[in-house]
């Protein structure tokens, strides 16, 4: 049952990505509506999958790589849809949906096996810390997509060669605002993720901070984003520089998620 739901969800995301691509090319509103409906359907199925998985596993399904990445994709989908509901950024979906699909494909190829919960993870902090940290990644990923869109649009405006993106992408100001909005949600979540993790660590290991590689790298990520936001508020950093920083910050976040686990190891390694 759970696996079937996952497969249908994946299929919906792939289909939605395809339709968004067609929309990007043709710019027909009816096609966009179709893509959006498929994406919403995917998001709902995905939610159902996570709930079913919760009952199948008997604990919060955020303990292995498959579950974490799948939840990451879920956060992106709903983060995107929630932004969409508030304000419209043209063709944002074309950039977000492929990333969601890639995450889901990564989840597909990792082990879906349900293993008993290690004693260290048996805590009420598990759902809180893990979901907040991954949701932060979801919003940072949206900011990353916005950053890429900004750089593409800016490039065409600076070079004065108007190709595929000039007419399709929204204005620089809209993209910059998008970046700001995503970070305004993502950064507090990231902060909260680190704080909850630290409290949990104190309870389990007896120390708030022990310079485990994952902790170190999430702190590096946090500093990158904090620097960006600080510069934005003080000297009005924006535009290209902010977009590049967003992309760098997201790379650090992704290294925290994967690079640390596979290259550096440490106490967090069971997640991932």
């Amino acid at each position: 049952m759970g696996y079937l739901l996952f497969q249908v969800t994946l299929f919906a995301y792939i289909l939605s990505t395809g339709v968004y691509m067609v929309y990007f090319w043709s710019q027909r509103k009816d096609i966009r509506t179709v893509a959006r409906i498929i994406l919403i359907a995917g998001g709902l199925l995905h939610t159902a999958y996570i709930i079913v998985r919760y009952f199948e596993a008997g604990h919060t399904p955020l303990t292995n790589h498959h579950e974490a990445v799948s939840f990451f994709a879920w956060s992106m989908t709903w983060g995107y849809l929630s932004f969409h509901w508030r304000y419209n950024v043209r063709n944002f979906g074309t950039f977000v949906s492929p990333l969601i699909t890639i995450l889901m494909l990564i989840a597909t190829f990792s082990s879906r096996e349900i293993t008993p919960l290690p004693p260290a993870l048996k805590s009420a902090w598990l759902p809180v810390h893990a979901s907040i940290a991954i949701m932060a990644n979801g919003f940072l990923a949206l900011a990353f997509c916005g950053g890429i869109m900004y750089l593409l649009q800016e490039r065409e405006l600076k070079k004065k060669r108007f190709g595929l993106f000039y007419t399709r992408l929204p204005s620089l100001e809209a993209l910059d605002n998008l970046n700001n909005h995503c970070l305004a949600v993502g950064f507090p979540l990231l902060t909260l993720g680190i704080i909850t993790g630290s409290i949990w660590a104190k309870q389990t290991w007896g120390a708030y901070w022990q310079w485990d590689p994952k902790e170190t790298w999430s702190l590096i990520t946090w500093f990158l984003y904090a620097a960006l936001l600080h510069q934005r508020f003080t000297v009005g950093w924006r535009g290209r520089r902010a977009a590049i920083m967003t992309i760098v910050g997201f790379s650090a976040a992704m290294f925290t998620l994967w690079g640390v686990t596979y290259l550096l190891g440490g106490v967090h390694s069971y997640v991932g």
Partner: protein
Amino acid sequence: MSAEKIMILGVNHKTAPVEIRERLAFPNDPGTPYRELSVIPGCDEFCFLSTCNRVEVIFVSSIPQETERKIRDFLFNKSMSYEEAGKYVYLHQGEAAIQHLFRVGASLDSMIVGEPQILGQLKQAYRDATEQNCTGMILNRLLHKGFSVAKRIRTETGIGSSAVSISYAAVELAKKIFGNLKNKRAMLVGAGEMAELAAQHLMNQGVAEVVVANRTFERAVNLARCFNGKAVSLEELIPQLEQVDIMISSTGSPDIILHSSDVKPLMRQRRNRPLFLIDIAVPRDLDPKLNNLDNVYLYGIDDLNNVVDINKAERDKEAVRAERIVTEETLKFMLWLGSMEVTPTIVAIREKADAIRKAELEKTLSGMGHLSDEETKAIEKMTAAMMNKILHHPIVYLKKDDSHKDKKVKLAFIRKLFNLDPDNSE
């Protein structure tokens, strides 16, 4: 009604330089034209339109030539001879006048084809004229028709959305950079037709303020008035740039007036808000290196031309369609004018009454099949006689010779009473 009684006399950006246009605008007392024009003999109906780019009098007169001469004298305030003024004015009569009005309303005659402001200005001019009781049946219908033609062209063609020109391209780019132009400020440096156009277009898009900087301050003040903006001297250029988001430069200066090194420190004070610089001067006013600064976008005249070329063909196609609509609507209006004579009105009343009579007769007769042919004929005769008796007095009343003005009122009234122009809801 003969269409030859309708005339338009005016000057616009194509026929007269701004110095001449300025003289005809009556900015000090907007009531003057109404007072002066309404006493001109023969000027039965008129409407006075005055914008930045045009001054026009649309009038209906039974002695058009004489009236036109008097109106021209009034417009130029006798500062020029009639013949000399003729170099700057255009005069349209009859069908050509109707067509011209439709083209003006639809923004086909505008400096920026398709700009939406002119329709509002025409509506305001009409409102003023009706408040002063200067319009009558003909102009009421002509102007209302003009508004609906403009609306039709706006919805049926893409003329409004692809009003392509250099200035339009500049605005398009500005929108790609800033999104909404509502709270942005623009600055004109130097005055030239193209710069004014761009500024006008930016105004149409709702920029908050237009600042004008010029070598001669007086010219800056005059131009700023046109945009409700403020004037500054050329020395204030760099400090002003701290506040401004869009700058259009078109000075005659042989040297570069703004260097990359002038703007670089400014960007920090601007908190990196984007700056869009447009250089339409030849030789160039702005340092090409400016484009390398972060959040500064510099476009020269050639860059803008490239943008224009992209959708020039599209615009031409739309304009052709718009002109076709104007021709079609002009013809329709001419038909209506033709019907505004006594004879066609009588014919129309008779036809209408007869149609009602026949319809009712058929309804009644089909319900009573036992009548003989003779009886049927008698009933038919009776209904025809009734119709003629009822219509007799209205028709006699219509045919009675009245003064010219009364006749028009009478015609309009009768046509309304019998609802002969159902599409004319006014």
